[in-house]
């Protein structure tokens, strides 16, 4: 390397502004520095159904997307609002049952049940969680863990909504392409919507509540109001996933309150990088297919699964996204002196 006439320079040098996350872009080449990673992600997600061989793996894509919605809602609540929620199963169950009831009792088609279940389910979850909003951290987590168990036992005990058999004979999507593009679209929309939201003034209020809720109160802002709004956003995303699951399996039952829906999103967030929003989606893209691949090992798959998790926590505890972003920002090029 001829060091007399050229030196290494970081690619982002010259476009970074003194405040974090602000760039001054002068050309399409500089623009592509920022847009390319995002574009690769979006195009990759959209082309997944085309690349997957056979029905089985296409179904896995749908499940990945539903877990991604849960992981996104967990990451948003935990790292942008400061509420650690184990309510993934609660959101999925409420959304799933709402869609199921709307479809099997009232005959509403899936194209309407999904948005309706998203909103009705979100309101229902928010109202039930409203008394727990003053709680923080682990205490909020315990309460949200209790709700799915509580709902499942209520349905079992009163034998409502089909009892232990669940609601059967629910309409499915018209074909598997519609199914996959609906869930992929939902993930992309919520991901980029949330990323926009957390950088808006409203998102700053959420961060402030996480950092110091007393100071937010002293600023004349009703924190319960904003916490409820955040819980509504997160639970609506979970309910959207639940409604999709109901129509994918043409069934809604007590197993939609299974704790897998609460736990796996957390593991995905740890692997993907907490607080990055896109990290949890990447985490789900890795964890869910791995769990499917390991199905051949029978019950031993839990062991492999745990080994992968422990490996990530030991060797890449910052998460894929933080690691990748750091490396991406360190890319260098040769420039003439």
């Amino acid at each position, binding site marked *: 390397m001829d060091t007399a006439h050229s030196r290494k320079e970081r690619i982002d040098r010259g476009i970074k502004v003194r405040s974090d996350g602000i760039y001054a872009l002068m050309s399409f080449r500089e623009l592509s520095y920022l847009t390319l990673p995002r574009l690769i992600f979006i195009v990759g997600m959209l082309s997944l159904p085309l690349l997957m061989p056979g029905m089985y793996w296409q179904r896995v894509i749908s499940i990945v997307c539903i877990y991604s919605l849960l992981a996104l809602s967990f990451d948003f609540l935990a790292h942008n609002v400061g509420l650690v929620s184990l309510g993934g199963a609660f959101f999925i169950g409420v959304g799933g049952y709402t869609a199921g009831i709307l479809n099997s009792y009232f005959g509403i088609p899936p194209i309407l049940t999904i948005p309706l279940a998203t909103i009705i389910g979100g309101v229902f979850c928010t109202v039930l969680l409203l008394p727990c909003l003053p709680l923080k951290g682990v205490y909020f987590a315990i309460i949200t863990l209790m709700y799915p168990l509580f709902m499942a036992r209520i349905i079992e005990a009163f034998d409502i909504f089909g009892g232990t058999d669940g609601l059967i004979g629910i309409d499915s999507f018209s074909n598997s392409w519609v199914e996959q593009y609906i869930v992929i679209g939902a993930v992309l929309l919520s991901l980029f919507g949330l990323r926009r939201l957390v950088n808006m003034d409203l998102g700053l209020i959420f961060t402030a509540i996480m950092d110091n809720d007393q100071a937010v*109160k*002293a*600023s004349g*802002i009703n*924190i319960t109001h904003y916490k409820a709004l955040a819980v509504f956003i997160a639970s609506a995303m979970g309910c959207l996933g639940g409604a999709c699951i109901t129509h994918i399996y043409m069934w809604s039952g007590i197993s939609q309150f299974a704790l897998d829906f609460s736990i796996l999103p957390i593991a995905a967030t740890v692997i993907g990088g907490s607080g990055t929003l896109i990290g949890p989606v990447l985490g789900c893209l890795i964890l869910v297919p791995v769990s499917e691949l390991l199905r051949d090992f029978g019950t031993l798959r839990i062991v492999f699964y745990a080994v992968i998790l422990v490996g990530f926590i030991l060797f890449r505890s910052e998460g894929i996204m933080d690691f990748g972003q750091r490396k991406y920002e360190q890319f260098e090029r040769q420039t003439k002196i």
Partner: protein
Amino acid sequence: MKNQAKKKGPILRVEGLTKHFGGVTALKDVSFEVGEGEILGIIGPNGSGKTTIVNNISGFIKPSSGKVYYKGKDITGKKPHKIADMGLTRTFQVMRPYYSLPAYKNLVIPLFSPRARRTGGWRGGGRLGDRHTVSIDILEEIGFERDSYIPFKTTSTLPTGYLKRLELARCLSLKPEIIICDEVFSGLSMSEISSMVPLIERLQMEGITIVMIEHRLRELFRVANRVMVLNFGEKLVEGSPDEVMADPQVKVAYFGSEEVEEVMTYA
């Protein structure tokens, strides 16, 4: 030079404020008034109930008995955000900035509040819409160097002096009518204090009523119109700084003896 308080009715009136924490009586039948546009100083030894008064007035603690009137309205036991929304703001003794945000984004939160949107915030700047620009303006006014990195630095890396100013700036963003300053001078260097004192005086000139809780008596006595002394949760004396300084009870409370010639010498 001390600003002369205009003679107007009381803006804040506290009547028989009492607070028990279990068996401990933190405040016992404390009554006082704050006139509009004046600076009232509250002093007292550690544990005398100064911060408890602030918490009771601003709604963070509900008093056991007694009433707080703000502009003639009973605000006893109202929620903190309701009280702040009415224009009664406070700073925290232990600073409470949003540590993960840069300094200028800290002010976006009060500028986003219903009160700031209604009134336009300090000097109406919030009406301009862009809260980020307005917050940098307010920070400059309060002593953050505009053309430096400081307003853009993450709050957790800022020194105490700037955090204390940030506390004041948060109150100012709300376009307050009263600011209760809970020890804004403590932990500051002499030069930082000497730049804060003119700021306090300027705020009073703008018509903001200020209640100051302080341990730094020299600076407090320079700006305060009246001073109230607390000891073991009870009001000891109240009067002009000179009267309070000369009062034998104050000397006993602070030094345990009347022999001390001049409180100021040691403060």
